[in-house]
């Protein structure tokens, strides 16, 4: 019996072997530390634009992408750092992008809201709420035409589910049985708009029925639970049965962006959700089942912190773009 099959564990957790869990936990730490460093960099004036932090949502980003294969695609959002790291991107190239450097993933042209790692299977964050949803349909059409067995996972928020793009995309993906997994990260708010004020059904997943596809409504702060459902949806997509809609209920600890004064939610609510920290929850469960001891867990976190610190240093030292290249890459030649 190998470690991850120890008794009394939930099957969702037991399904993940130690190496997988360690990788997942590492990525969750990397996300958390990345966001914290991003925030600190902003305070220190290293970053010019705004940013949307995903602290508190790490289990959703990592859990959904965990069952993906290397050649699969993701499409991300304005709150996309987590997805990017979860998909395996290099934090140093992300920071370089964030600092607007020529070495960044997008050569400093895209910034926080547009980080893409096309080679790594991340077809890009998106500054337009819901903007990635119709694109996912086309990626699904490509996969189907090319019969390459891939899957496209597209992220969006609860707020995005009120965009017309959501409706059109889910409908098309469904009628054509495209290999797409729609992942709604429901963090309760679209900016200041409470989901209860923004839509008249309790769950975004309830809308799946309107497109004849499965809708899964999950505790988005439960890494193992998210991964288990994602695996089902990914398998369904890959086998040609069509798309699914997964809703991860989660919470962003920080404000929507730097301009947010949190006028629309209470301190208590924030505290309540902080107590459900997805990272601590996973660590506690692993300890409870004797899969990792405190020292091993500590080391994962420290390694992640070191990686992020190094990434920031790397990025700071990188060169800025040369203004004479202003119009480069507007067109492909």
């Amino acid at each position: 019996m190998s470690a991850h099959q120890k008794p009394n564990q939930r099957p969702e957790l037991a399904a993940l072997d130690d190496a997988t869990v360690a990788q997942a936990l590492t990525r969750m730490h990397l996300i958390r530390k990345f966001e914290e460093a991003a925030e600190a960099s902003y305070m220190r004036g290293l970053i010019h634009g705004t940013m949307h932090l995903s602290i508190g949502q790490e289990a959703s980003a990592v859990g959904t992408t965990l069952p993906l294969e290397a050649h699969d695609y993701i499409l991300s959002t304005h709150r996309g750092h987590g997805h990017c790291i979860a998909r395996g991107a290099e934090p140093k190239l992300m920071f370089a992008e964030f600092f607007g450097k020529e070495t960044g993933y997008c050569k400093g042209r895209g910034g926080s809201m547009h980080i893409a790692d096309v080679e790594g299977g991340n077809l890009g964050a998106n500054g337009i709420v819901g903007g990635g949803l119709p694109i996912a349909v086309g990626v699904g059409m490509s996969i189907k035409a090319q019969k390459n067995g891939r899957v496209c996972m597209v992220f969006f928020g609860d707020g995005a589910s009120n965009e017309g793009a959501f409706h059109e995309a889910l409908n098309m993906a469904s009628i054509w049985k495209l290999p797409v997994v729609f992942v709604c990260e429901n963090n309760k708010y679209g900016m200041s708009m409470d989901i209860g004020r923004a839509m008249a059904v309790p769950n975004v997943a309830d809308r799946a029925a309107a497109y004849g596809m499965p809708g899964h409504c999950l505790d988005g702060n439960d890494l193992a639970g998210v991964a288990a459902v994602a695996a089902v949806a990914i398998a369904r997509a890959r086998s040609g049965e069509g798309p699914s809609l997964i809703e991860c209920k989660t919470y962003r600890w920080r404000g929507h962006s730097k301009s947010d004064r949190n006028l629309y939610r209470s301190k208590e609510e924030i505290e309540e959700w902080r107590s459900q920290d997805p990272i601590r929850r996973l660590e506690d469960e692993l300890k409870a089942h004797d899969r990792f001891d405190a020292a091993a867990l500590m080391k994962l976190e420290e390694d992640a912190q070191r990686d992020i610190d190094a990434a920031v240093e790397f990025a700071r030292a990188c060169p800025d773009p040369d203004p004479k290249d202003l119009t480069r890459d507007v067109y492909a030649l």
Partner: protein
Amino acid sequence: MLEPATEIRELSYAEAVREALGQAMEADERVFLFGEDVGVYGGAFGVSGDLVHRFGTDRVIDTPISELGIAGAAVGAAITGMRPVLEIQFSDFVTLAMEQLVNQAAKIRFMFGGKASVPMVVRLPGGSGTGAAAQHSQSLEAWFAHVPGLKVLQPSTPHDAKGMLLAAIDDPNPVLIFEHKLLYKTKGHVPAEAYRVPIGKAAIRREGTDVTIVGSSIMARKAEAAAERLASDGISAEVIDLRSIRPIDFATIAESVRKTHRLLVVYEGVKTMGIGAEISAMIAESEVFDFLDAPIIRLGGADVPIPYNPVLEKAAVPQEDDIVAAATNLVRRGEA
């Protein structure tokens, strides 16, 4: 602009817009404000501020993220007796609302043989300079200047931001107001009472004899600053703040060019097919053509999406130095 002699107050551009909204809502119960996060959040740029507390959630309405839907809702409210003011959170998102603005709002009156009117106002924060990159920094106003049935404004001062918004709310037609994000914090004199600045009238910000510089939105401010520097180089620039790009105040521009014989147009939108093209073409096809002593120069945004990196971002749109250089070249041209 004639201004009634009242208390001299300074407000920021954002405060001026808010004051106009408050006064319009106080004066006319048909007026309401809606858009994404205009309520308790106070607007993404803080423009609506405390209005929701003053007027309640029935008149300051947070909407779902549904730009096409909310634009259509403005149309529906307008044709049935209301005076909606819609905020599109960043003007870039108007790309999702084009159908309702262009096919419906702009055309309903005409298509219905004049039997309906569409008195709605859309406020659109636009422009670059905040590091928000290509999808949050566009200047798309030129598109709307191409659409009969719409009016399109670009106030550049707190004074005009208030007065033109009040005029737009009075107007029985759909009016789009592009507010530049970098202007929100700029300050200026704003009378306290509810005054109107007429739609379709440019403002001469500075008189001059050597060259006419027409600027729109924030570029009018930059042109003023440039003119100051040009003056110390011995060049007398007349600065016209366009203010309205549909309709365009051709008469004011033409009269100025008749005097200066030289025209420079400065705007932030992409140079190609930007508003400067229309102004240039209007002059080049008019009798004023014969008064021109030099080519008509346009300084517009580079033909590039707005880059994230701040150095590139600045390089992508005209700066004060560019205006000074272009005006100087234009004036010295004959002398070379």
